[in-house]
């Protein structure tokens, strides 16, 4: 029974020297006048059937490096400098040699070390004197120069080819050891093929070849020849080349999930400027003007623009009176003088609550639900758990029937949507909410409760000056923490100073 082989496989067997001498696949492809890939495919099949033996060897390959390939005529700069030096009478100011040699000042500077090492020149302060090697005319090319010239002329070459060309390779490489980028060396693995005894026996016995195709082509389809073709079976267990899709940042997914959660619950999205007036960031929220959070220590003040325009004077006046003595809100106020100059100051917003306060003033008529997601700024030194920029989601519910119970339920719903089923509420203090609450979620990984943010019912001192008389539920929740827990990060900087490996390896779906 004659064996059935594909045409290309038969040709490979026939092309191999009968004495079982190994041949590189590249060489084999050249002999057959074929591309490497079908030859490699044929070799693999033949090897599986024991008709050829495949071995691997590694060999260095050399090519001109980024620096060396940039030199005109593959000539080392020091040779050009030395030539210019001799032309100038054997001695010259170093800066003058740049123009004389046609090199940049930087290149001349870098060549000094090699001029000295080759004994081509001696440095004397800012002057250079030609060395003895150049007194009797231009010296012959040294091994490293010869190597570069060879590589520039012939392209990448294997060690064997370089040696065959008579180059003093080791001497050249020794010269270049301290000099990166002139000649690059990389390891090349090559596969060698030799015919086996079985292969020889098969050839001797006669083979029948079969028309087998790798790829279905338009030509095969149009001509109808596909009917005669046999499609080579693939090894379907082998992996394909790695591929990573373009995709959104893992933290972006948290931000988008947050937006979606509130949009689904009937919330309207709002926004406020990053450069914000102290009025909207603090005063409208009943944050006293001497509150430590307003210190230069904690808040980024903006030098340009320095001042923001205050809103409607009637609103400013209501806010002022509320701070000073409670105004019409039933409060006693902070009992300190309120200074409009401090309210005009520009800050980088310290929370997205400025956005919901603006939205509340723009339209305080219930029922409304509003949220905003975005970066906020605090004057923090960067370390593994602090950044001067982080993201928050702020939201408010303006509703005649709004209650603290409704707020706690809403926060529970939100964190359940974000993947935190266990939630705890503890009393807290914020200047602009009363009652106030801190939200904790239970982390299985830590076996502990972790604080996620603050919430409460806006104080009447906040809502009434803004024109709202019904309860307003409000919250401001940090989002980086959600991402850190979700993705198991221990360093918040990973989010913003991202390594592409992390971005690629974090899958789109929730782990």
């Amino acid at each position, binding site marked *: 029974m004659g064996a059935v082989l594909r045409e290309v496989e038969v040709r490979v067997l026939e092309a191999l020297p009968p004495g079982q001498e190994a041949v590189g696949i590249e060489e084999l492809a050249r002999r057959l006048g074929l591309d490497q890939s079908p030859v490699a495919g044929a070799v693999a099949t033949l090897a599986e059937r024991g008709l050829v033996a495949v071995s691997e060897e590694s060999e260095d390959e050399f090519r001109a490096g*980024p620096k060396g390939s940039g030199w005109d005529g593959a000539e080392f700069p020091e040779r050009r400098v030395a030539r210019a030096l001799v032309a100038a009478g054997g001695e010259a100011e170093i800066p003058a040699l740049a123009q004389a040699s046609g090199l940049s000042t930087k290149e001349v500077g870098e060549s000094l070390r090699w001029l000295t090492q080759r004994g081509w020149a001696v440095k004397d302060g800012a002057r250079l004197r030609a060395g003895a090697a150049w007194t009797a005319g231009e010296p012959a090319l040294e091994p490293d120069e010869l190597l570069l010239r060879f590589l520039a002329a012939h392209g990448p070459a294997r060690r064997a080819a370089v040696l065959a060309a008579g180059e003093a390779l080791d001497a050249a490489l020794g010269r270049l050891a301290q000099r990166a980028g002139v000649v690059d060396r990389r390891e090349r693995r090559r596969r060698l093929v030799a015919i086996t005894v079985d292969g020889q026996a098969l050839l001797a016995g006669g083979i029948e070849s079969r028309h087998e195709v790798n790829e279905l082509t338009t030509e095969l389809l149009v001509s109808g020849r596909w009917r005669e073709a046999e499609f080579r079976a693939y090894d379907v267990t082998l992996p394909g080349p790695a591929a990573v899709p*373009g*995709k*959104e*940042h893992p*933290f*972006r997914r948290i931000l*988008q999930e947050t*937006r979606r959660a509130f*949009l689904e*619950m*009937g*919330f*309207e*999205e709002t*926004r406020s*400027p*990053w*450069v*914000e007036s102290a009025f909207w960031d603090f005063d409208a929220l009943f944050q006293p003007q*001497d509150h*430590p959070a307003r210190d*230069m220590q904690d808040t*980024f*003040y903006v*030098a*340009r*623009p320095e001042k*923001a*325009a205050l809103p409607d004077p009637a609103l400013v006046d209501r806010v002022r009176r509320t701070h000073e003595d*409670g105004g019409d809100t039933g*409060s006693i106020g902070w*009992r*300190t003088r309120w200074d409009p100059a401090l309210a005009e100051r*520009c800050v*980088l917003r310290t929370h997205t609550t400025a956005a919901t306060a603006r939205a509340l003033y723009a339209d305080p008529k219930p029922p409304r*639900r509003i949220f905003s997601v975005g970066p906020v*700024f605090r004057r923090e030194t960067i370390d593994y758990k602090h*950044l*001067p*920029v982080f993201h928050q989601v702020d939201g408010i*519910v303006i509703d005649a*029937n709004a*209650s*603290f*119970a409704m707020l706690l*339920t809403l926060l529970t719903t939100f964190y359940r949507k974000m993947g935190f089923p266990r939630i*705890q*509420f*503890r*009393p807290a203090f914020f200047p602009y909410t*009363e*009652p106030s609450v801190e939200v904790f979620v239970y982390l299985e990984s830590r076996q502990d409760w972790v604080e996620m943010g603050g919430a409460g*019912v806006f104080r009447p001192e906040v809502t009434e000056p803004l024109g709202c008389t019904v309860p307003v539920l409000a919250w401001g929740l940090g989002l980086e923490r959600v991402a850190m827990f979700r993705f198991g990060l221990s360093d918040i900087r990973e989010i*913003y*100073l*991202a*390594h*592409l490996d992390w*971005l690629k390896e974090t899958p789109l779906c929730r782990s």
Partner: protein
Amino acid sequence: MPVLGIPLDELFARYGATIEPAELEHQLHRFGCSVEGWATAFRWRCPSCGTLSEGGEDAAPPPACEGCGADLRSAATPGAPAGEVQVLRMELLAVRPDLFGPEGLARGLRGFLRRESGAPRYRVEPGSFSVDVDPGLAGPGVHRPRIVAAIVRGLTLDDARLRGLMKLQENVHWALGRDRKLASIGVLDGLRFVPLGFDPAQPHSALTPREILAKHPKGTAYAWLLEGNTKAPLLADAKGGVLSMPPIINSEATRVTTATKEVVIDVTGLADRHIDKALAMVVTSLLEACPGAHAETVTVRYAGETRVTPDLAPHEVVLDPAAAGRLIGVPWTADEVAELLRFMRHDATVVDGQVRVLVPAWRSDILHPRDLVEDAAIAHGYDRIPAVGLAAATIGLPQPREEAAVRARAALAGLGFLEVMTLAITSEEATYRKTGLPDDDRQATIENPISVEQTMVRVSVLPGLLETLAINLGHSYPQRIAEVGLVVHADPAEETGAAETMVAGFALAGDGLGYADARSALDALLRETGRDAGGVRYRALDWPLFIPGRGAEVLDGAGERIGVVGEVHPEVLTRFRIIHPVAVAEISL
């Protein structure tokens, strides 16, 4: 936020029982106190002033005596071991300085845990002591024109209580006094003026006020409080002997010790509200700590005004119980609200269906009836509030600007870019000098940067993209990254003086990549985001960021620049140590 260490033995002594640690922590969280943990604190006595200081858990004396500042680790003034104590470490809640000591915290917990109810009564008798305020202090240029004072007699101070008093004073200074700016407390027992920490045996060591500000550690620490003032008050006795120099320091001769049976407490400040509250906190805490003690009033005489202090009269607030219940979402009766408030140590009774609340003088945080609604909710327990769903129908509506960003990100992901997020604040160095964007002097700048790397709000996402490539030099190429986000420019026409633009930028890095690749991705992005509507054209752009002849600006139909694209100049790449060609583009959305 500062952390407070409450000695457990004293807390339980004042509370009247012990509580299991886990239960105490749980109840404190329900009460609104943030427990940091438990610790063993070692105590050390100062050989020069006798004050008891607490060291850390490493059983080494603290470097400075809490009383006089002497170095307790030095051979000259070695601290003597004085036992150890279990402490509860809590974060200070700035609004409740009345809870800052074991006495105040125990007073609160006795109510919250239903052992007592209503406000405790303290014995205050009329006293004969008076303070005359120099009319000169009423004029301009005086940093603290107001004073209140009280006398407490029958004290039984031991080391622990003395230390507690000192700590309370310190913490009230921080929370209510805003680091002594609004209120500064003195507790005095004596007549001569020798500043604390200087040897009373050497009378020549007494300092003048000016010397105190220049030389004494407390003087140099708090001198800023007097800046801009031409006159400062001194507290003197009838013979003219100086007692203290608020807010800086007390006299050595008036130092309170365990032998002290009587003290004069003075609080100076800017406004009566703060100093009245501070005095009430200190006086009532002392009376809680020393059960047999009582207070006496002091008459403060200003020109044309006389006050008798301490003013421990409660402040009356009338609360609508139905409205309170609606706000919390629990259908309370008036009696229930009154009872809950009594557990929070208020006096509360129901009068004509309303709750009449008498808020104790030591509570500084009740500005509005709403604050009492929260007190009732805390006493009820946040963990016992029922679930209530959102009722009204509203419609979810996204911000158009955010949606535009979402679409641009989708297009960029489809084009194979990995999204990165970089910090929105950066520096002029990174933006203009390193990246080579033209400096049009329109960036929003930070007045008080915390680092030279963040001095302005970004005007482009391109510097952040190049920085990201620089972080990933070792990662395989090609690299395709993109960022969509806001950039900011100063703009006087805007309300806040700055205009924001949503931009989309990307970078391609790798051998063989160049202008054509960036241009092709940019054209696709312009098309997918609809930014090419009305036509766009390209014009050569000569920025240092780009290789000459390989940069362009994108102009919309009206000739306005909406973006840039180009191959990054090797000079720029070298500054970022990037060794592969990079092409970038950025457009506004």
